[in-house]
């Protein structure tokens, strides 16, 4: 029976990534100063674990590399090696090299160039690796057995026990120690040759002998020695009489034996293939639609018995939906975890001093949403460091603390999650953006002012980067427009707030979960539209009192606010009568960020869970809609991208 590593490859990678996360966190903690004992301990353990796992997977290059790192860390841990800044840098570089090596690991893979470079750096800083017993890519040990001549120390009363260790013994020193220990249980071990210390430290299988004073039988002594394991040969010499024994193979419990299969292990966690979660999600989506249909049918054909079961079923479907969505929820720190390292590296590369704060690590988000939003966040962080936060000198000159403050936060807001990247840097240069926009003909020549929303729309156009240098970090064509596009594709929206000299905050609003959202259904003309509740504030009946006209344009007077008013008919360009303001119409107050607006619809049909089917189509053609859904009666409805409704105003 041999172990097939390929079965465990995925598990290896997942576990290794967790260890690497711990390694990076510990390195960052060490760099920041403070108590070093705990992080060093964590580093050592994590490296040790990676070494063990990669050796098991036969990824020899990785295992050896981890072994070298472990040795260095061991010396640091014992106080034999000082943890100076250049060693810290070498360790960071090593952690990176380890990460790529693990991703590319295979049995045949040798040392990557990054590993070689990192090792060289480590050696320059911390000297060679300690003498360790790592045998490198293991071939079967040829086991040069060292015959130890039985010498004088063994003269004396008692029996001589001669032992030769098996050629393939692992940790032979320990086996020797165990053999002596077991024999000691039978009597007195008067002498050992070579000495016990030498035996224990032996790195190769050896022969050794002991003089034992005991009343135990030869069989008992031999049995005791063999029970220590890896014994090729044992001989008990009683007054010159010898008996040879050859190694017996131990029978292993083989297949075919009647065994009871282990019952389910009592574990706290279960690892699930992500594809299964996606499949469950699809199924529950279909079930939600079917439930809607059934509810409709039972409403039009009342039957008390059926009603009761239907209610029960509907409730069960809801519960099931909740459970499945919960399974997909993942706390944001799983993605946020790698950002501190990223911020540190970026800041160093640009000679900026940045204090990075992460808030709301425990907030949960659907896992595919979280996966997708990672890259946009990275871009925003790099932008903030590259363009937002000034150099320490500039900041000092402006009366600010030398270290810039960068905050990444996640927070719940009803049915949405808000992810904010906020810096206290120089803010976006409005005049410069405007100048460029004027030059490109995007705004009127006469425009001298622009509010945050308009500003955002401008900078979100591809190609409008005003960065002086196209640095390696940002500005290489991947602009804030990419963040916008990605967020919209996920059913969310992006908002900007910036104050010159004080800083910039970008807020990404995302629905908590992607596939099933609660929406308000509205009718305009003959079509029905779905408005995700994340963007719906309230609804009210169309009433002469709340609708007024300002400069010929209709507005909504909502308590003490005056909001612009849109007509859904106009928005979707239905060939219907112009704005009539009939008494039976209704108004939906929609919002995006701080902005609110009224949307007049013909009729509100109700709230419903809808299964979102996203479009594959090019975004340009359907700017108003983020997707489509099938309603309870089987007819399709378009899902409005509410954020886009704010763009014209």
């Amino acid at each position, binding site marked *: 029976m041999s172990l097939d590593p390929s079965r465990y490859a995925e598990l290896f990678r997942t576990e290794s990534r967790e260890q690497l996360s711990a390694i990076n966190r510990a390195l960052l903690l060490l760099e920041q100063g403070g108590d070093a004992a705990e992080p060093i301990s964590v580093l050592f353990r994590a490296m040790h674990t990676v070494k063990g796992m990669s050796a*098991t997977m036969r990824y020899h290059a990785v295992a050896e590399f981890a072994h070298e790192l472990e040795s260095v860390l061991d010396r640091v841990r014992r106080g034999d090696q000082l943890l100076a800044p250049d060693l810290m840098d070498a360790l960071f570089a090593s952690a990176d090299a380890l990460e790529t090596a693990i991703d590319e690991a295979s049995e045949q893979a040798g040392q990557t160039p990054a590993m070689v470079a990192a090792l060289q750096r480590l050696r320059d800083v911390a000297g060679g690796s300690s003498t360790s017993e790592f045998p490198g890519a293991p071939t079967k040990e040829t086991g040069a057995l060292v015959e130890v001549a039985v010498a004088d120390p063994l003269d004396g009363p008692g029996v001589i026990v001669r032992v030769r260790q098996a050629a393939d013994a692992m940790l032979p020193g320990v086996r020797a120690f165990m053999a002596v220990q077991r024999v000691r249980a039978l009597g007195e071990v008067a002498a050992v040759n070579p000495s016990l210390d030498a035996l224990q430290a032996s790195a190769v299988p050896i022969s050794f002998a002991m003089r034992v004073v005991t009343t135990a039988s030869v069989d008992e002594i031999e049995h005791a020695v063999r029970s220590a394991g890896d014994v090729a040969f044992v001989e008990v010499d009683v007054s010159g009489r010898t008996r040879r024994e050859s190694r017996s193979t131990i029978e292993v419990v083989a297949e075919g034996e009647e065994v009871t299969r282990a019952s389910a292990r009592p574990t706290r966690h279960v690892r699930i293939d992500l594809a299964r979660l996606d499949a469950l999600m699809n199924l529950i989506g279909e079930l939600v639609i079917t439930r809607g249909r059934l509810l409709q049918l039972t409403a039009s054909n009342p039957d008390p018995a059926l009603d009761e079961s239907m209610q029960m079923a509907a409730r069960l479907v809801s519960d099931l939906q909740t459970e499945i969505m919960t399974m997909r929820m993942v706390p944001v720190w799983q993605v946020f975890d790698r950002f501190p390292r990223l911020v540190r590296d970026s800041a160093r590369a640009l000679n900026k001093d940045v204090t990075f704060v992460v808030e709301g690590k425990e907030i949960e988000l659907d896992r595919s949403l979280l996966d997708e939003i990672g890259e946009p966040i990275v871009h925003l962080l790099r932008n903030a460091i590259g363009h937002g936060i000034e150099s320490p000198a500039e900041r000092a000159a402006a009366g600010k603390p030398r270290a810039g403050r960068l905050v990444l936060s996640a927070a719940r807001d009803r049915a949405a999650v808000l992810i904010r990247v906020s810096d206290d840097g120089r803010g976006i240069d409005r005049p410069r953006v405007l100048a460029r926009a004027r030059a490109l003909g995007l705004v009127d020549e006469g425009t001298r002012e622009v509010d945050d929303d308009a500003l955002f729309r401008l900078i979100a156009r591809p190609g409008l980067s005003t960065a002086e240098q196209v640095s390696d970090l940002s500005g290489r064509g991947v602009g804030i427009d990419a963040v916008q596009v990605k967020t919209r594709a996920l059913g969310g929206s992006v908002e900007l707030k910036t104050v010159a000299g004080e800083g910039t905050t970008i807020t990404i609003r995302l629905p908590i979960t992607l596939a099933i959202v609660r929406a308000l259904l509205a009718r305009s003309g003959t079509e029905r539209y779905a408005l995700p509740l994340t963007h719906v504030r309230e609804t009210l009946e169309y009433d002469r009192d709340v609708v007024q006209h300002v400069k010929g344009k209709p507005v909504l007077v909502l308590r003490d606010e005056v909001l612009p008013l849109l007509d859904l008919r106009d928005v979707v360009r239905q060939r219907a009568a112009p704005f009539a303001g009939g008494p039976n119409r209704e108004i939906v107050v929609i919002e995006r960020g701080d902005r609110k607006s009224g949307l007049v619809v013909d009729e509100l049909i109700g709230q419903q869970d809808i299964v979102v089917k996203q479009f594959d189509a090019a975004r340009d053609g359907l700017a108003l809609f983020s997707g489509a859904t099938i309603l309870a009666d089987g007819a399709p409805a378009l899902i409005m991208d509410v954020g886009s409704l704010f763009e014209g105003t």
Partner: protein
Amino acid sequence: MVAPTVLICDDAIFMRTMVSDILQQAGFEVVGEAETGAQAVERYKQLRPDLVTMDIVMPDMGGIDAVREITKFDPDAKVLMCSAMGQQALVVEAIQAGAKDFVVKPFQPSRVLEAVQRVLG
């Protein structure tokens, strides 16, 4: 025939899975797992397994201390230490603390089972 029970202690789920697979195929019932030395001691007391596999390096009480505690609680405890290469001194310490045998990573199933046989007698 009642399957012998085993408690698997290692802070890496990867290693626990491997050991678990090897032992289950050999007819063991895995009745518990532990990620730290402290958990290992606690679960031993609760479960009283026939066998324990114990990693040397674990957070929150290392494997050696855990063996010591378990052996103090139950002198007949059968603990098999799992060690990586290059840790002779630590393994010796573990044996002195009460471990009955050891296996070295990377695991070879045959060796693991040999060691288990020796430990269980």
